């Protein structure tokens, strides 16, 4: 668990704090996304967690231990770090890049080799083909993958990711995001993720922290942010399609009507899975030219979801 307590950072020769008395905590195994416009202090927060930036005041704890009392180099070897520009060492092979932290930790050479090969496989690169290449021989997407593999190398419980998929085109970005979420299901890291893209934040975050001008504006789950934005800043950040975005996060089962009130469920022309988002229900309705879909859990039909219910829901949450 990561805890920040009244953390403040004023850079030299400035008066306005870059980060202003921020307090929050991130639970083990969660992805916490910091989102906000550039200059809002999100990257500074990230860099304070691995002490690339030292806070002016306040305290940061990792698993109850004050990180300001730990040697900063040793601290960083326990924290994975991924940045937008990747920052692979251009004069070292991919194998050496990924093996960087294990080598710093003086793992035996055989174990490093095995770990590197395993990780390249995990991030979707062919180890036998990639390991001996140099960074300049890879595509942008491949470099990002190597960046993630390098951060995972020593199996750190915590990962800091600063716009890790920001430098690749939207198609590759989407794929990398999906793959990373799948990977996270297995590795269960505690992740701090920085982005300026609210859609990425909603997609990746278990928890989102909205920042503006060094201040914490709102924190909550993607659902909470969408249904109860704290102010106009958050509303603007989310955009005008708040209702539709919410439907992407709402499971079909949460809006469905139970069979008693809708005895015709079995007669529905089309079906979706209970845990699928309402957005999918809309898609299925449009395809089948129907105002209603049946909701199934496994093989069992458990309810129906109608266009009227969805409309009512959107009205309820947008409230205006």
């Amino acid at each position, binding site marked *: 668990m990561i805890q920040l307590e009244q953390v403040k950072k004023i850079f030299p020769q400035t008066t306005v704090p870059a980060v202003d008395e921020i307090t929050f905590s991130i639970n083990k195994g969660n992805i916490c996304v910091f989102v906000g416009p550039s200059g809002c202090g999100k990257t500074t927060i990230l860099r304070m967690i691995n002490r690339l930036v030292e806070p002016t005041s306040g305290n940061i704890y990792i698993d109850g231990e004050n990180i300001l009392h730990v040697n900063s180099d*040793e601290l960083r070897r326990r924290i994975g770090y991924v940045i937008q520009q990747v*920052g692979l060492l251009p004069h070292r092979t991919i194998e050496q890049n990924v093996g960087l932290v294990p080598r710093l930790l003086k793992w035996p050479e055989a174990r490093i080799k095995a770990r590197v090969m395993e990780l390249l496989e995990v991030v979707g690169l062919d180890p036998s083909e990639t390991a001996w290449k140099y*960074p300049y021989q890879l595509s942008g997407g491949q470099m990002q993958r190597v960046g993630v593999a390098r951060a995972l190398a020593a199996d750190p419980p915590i990962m800091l990711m600063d716009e890790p998929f920001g430098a690749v085109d939207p198609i590759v970005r989407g794929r990398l995001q999906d793959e990373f979420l799948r990977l996270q299901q297995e590795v269960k890291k505690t992740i701090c993720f920085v982005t300026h893209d609210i859609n990425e934040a909603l997609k990746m975050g278990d928890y989102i922290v909205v920042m503006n001008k060094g201040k914490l504006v709102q924190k909550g789950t993607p659902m909470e942010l969408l249904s109860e934005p704290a102010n106009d800043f958050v509303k603007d950040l989310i955009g005008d399609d708040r209702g539709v975005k919410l439907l992407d996060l709402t499971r079909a089962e949460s809006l469905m009507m139970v069979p008693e009130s809708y005895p015709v469920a079995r007669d529905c022309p089309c079906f979706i899975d209970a845990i699928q988002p309402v957005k999918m229900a809309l898609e299925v309705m449009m395809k089948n030219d129907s105002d209603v879909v049946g909701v199934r859990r496994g093989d069992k039909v458990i309810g129906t979801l109608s266009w009227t219910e969805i409309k009512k829901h959107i009205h309820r949450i947008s409230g205006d």
Partner: protein
Amino acid sequence: MNFEFERFVIAMFDRAPPYILEHMQLVLIPLAIATAIAFPVGVLLTRARYRRYSGRVMGIFNTGQTIPPLAVIAVFFPFLGLGYRPAVIALTLYALLPIARNTLAGLAGVPLEVKDAARGMGMTEWQTFRQIEIPLSLPVVMSGIKTSAVLTAGTAALAALVGGKGMGAVIFAGINFFRMELILAGTIYIGLIALFLDRVLSFIEARMTPSYMK
């Protein structure tokens, strides 16, 4: 001026060759001393603590470069007298700038994100310097040393004026005795020495350059 081919052949193959090693020494010793001074200075001036002095120090080096080597020799003459030592000192001062400048440029050219990632991974400041900054800036530093070497090869001819020997002795003898053959032979050898140093240092530079920079 007189020119006789026979005398030229004698100058080329008999008179001048003994001065080749002397001249090489006059280039390589100042070059080694200059590198030993300019490289650490360049490194210090790129560290966070001393970065603010880099403008001023480079200013001093730049000024040094504008003083003619003859004048430098004249300035040191009252303290060091004539001979080999003042020549070496003057040439050293002259060789400093290109090396210092390229050390600064080379280190400043190491991509920020690479240093940031390295520190973020937990490399110490020394490890980052040794394993990343040095190898990535070395080609640029080497090209500074090469520039200095070629520059010094030419300037070293003046060492003969203060009794510092070298190929300059052949040229000045030619001037004093109106013998074009000697002047030409000395000049050709200095050119060859400069060319040779350039080739050798280029080879080393190429060997040090990581494949991605080629």
